[in-house]
């Protein structure tokens, strides 16, 4: 059972599309109280969509120097997106579950 969970939790940050301008959208899911990826490397101007796939609410926020945001909390099936406009590193967390952490590297 736990095995299945672990495998599931590695469900990718799915690369969704690449527009003409070169900006891409990525999806990071929240499932079994983990972000689907621990680290994600993207380019300046790319967008990351955070989707909750758990039966309970999650939050998404960052208090990193590079970018500060709080997407609030939302239930299963809902998502919110953030566009990253500066190069550097951003730590993303869930305020409700502090063990949920990931890093986005913006190149």
């Amino acid at each position, binding site marked *: 059972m736990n095995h299945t969970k672990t495998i599931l939790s590695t469900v*990718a940050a799915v690369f969704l599309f690449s527009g003409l301008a070169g900006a891409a959208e990525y999806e990071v899911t929240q499932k*079994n109280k983990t972000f689907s990826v621990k680290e994600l490397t993207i380019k300046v101007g790319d967008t990351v969509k955070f989707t909750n796939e758990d039966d309970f609410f999650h939050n998404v926020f960052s208090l990193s120097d590079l970018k500060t945001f709080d997407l609030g909390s939302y239930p299963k099936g809902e998502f919110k997106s953030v566009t990253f406009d500066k190069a550097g590193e951003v730590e993303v967390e869930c305020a409700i*579950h502090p063990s949920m952490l990931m890093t986005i590297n913006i190149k």
Partner: protein
Amino acid sequence: MKYCGDRLVRGLLLASLVTLGACATAPQTGEEKTALKAGDPSLQHWLLPDTPPYPEDNKPTAERVALGKQLFFDPRLSRHGNMSCASCHSPMFGWSDGLPTARGHNGMLLGRASPTVINTAYNSIQMWDGRKKDLEDQAIGPMEASVEMNSDFDRMFAFLSTNKGYRDAFEKAYPDEGVSKETIAKAIASYERTIISNDSPFDRWVKGDEKAMSEQQVRGFKIFIDPAKGNCAICHSAPNFTDDGFHNLGLASSAGEDADPGRFAHKPIRILKGAFKTPTLRDVALTAPYFHDGSAETLMDVVEHYAIGGVVKENLSPNIRKLNLTRSDKEDLVAFMEALTTEHEPVALPVLPLE
């Protein structure tokens, strides 16, 4: 399956879509699929491992646990020599103190209830507001706090390193590490890792003993995990009946400007205003009164609070809403929570070294 992983992130669009489809068909972990039968495989994730995790540099040994136990019960670690860890975390009160909120240095009334020590060894974060990471990190906190044990560390180190019993015990437990805040904390944490509740009637029922819980208790468990009924397991989740998360429960005390900010003081994110850590429910029948402010006297009071969906709605956790529970549903829930008590061996108090 591995390739559902991040390696595909930069992969072809088509490949990504295929991956997404494949992953989406994986089984759900919703509690509605749990079979309410003693020993059923779907219940096994509720069992706790016998040995809780510990940090690499503090593997529990008999010497470490014995030293930690002495320190835990020794009031001489406090400034006035009258308060130990056990003053607020007493085995007589389920490793809490039976008070709505704690009493500290000089009997000062503190703002929050003393949380139980039971099963904190399994927590990934400590304290009502999560300001401590692990037990080693937590153990010194109350000694440092001027409103709690208010310890005089210079005097404490001098005492512990000249007292022959303690000097020998430290040397056996932590050879060459000396007497320091670190070794005191490590010893106390090692002792706390032995304060475990994982052999309750519920655990025995999960393992297959159908007589371990009454019919009413099994009904209570069903309500507990049913999202449409009690919805309790949404936060009090398996296996330690906590999600190690932070939620605002809409307690009456959360209204107003002077309300305890809880987790928000450490992480200034809006939903954390008035949010506190989900406590374990193991041995919960031993640890009344309840909530971080001690405002509920009984387990039934707790259930009634959730049934009405909280009192203060401002910044209320979205997991909390008015519940559709009958009187007998509520009684079943309380009966189930009473099935979470492990029958412990009586705690033998340590003899403390006098010189």
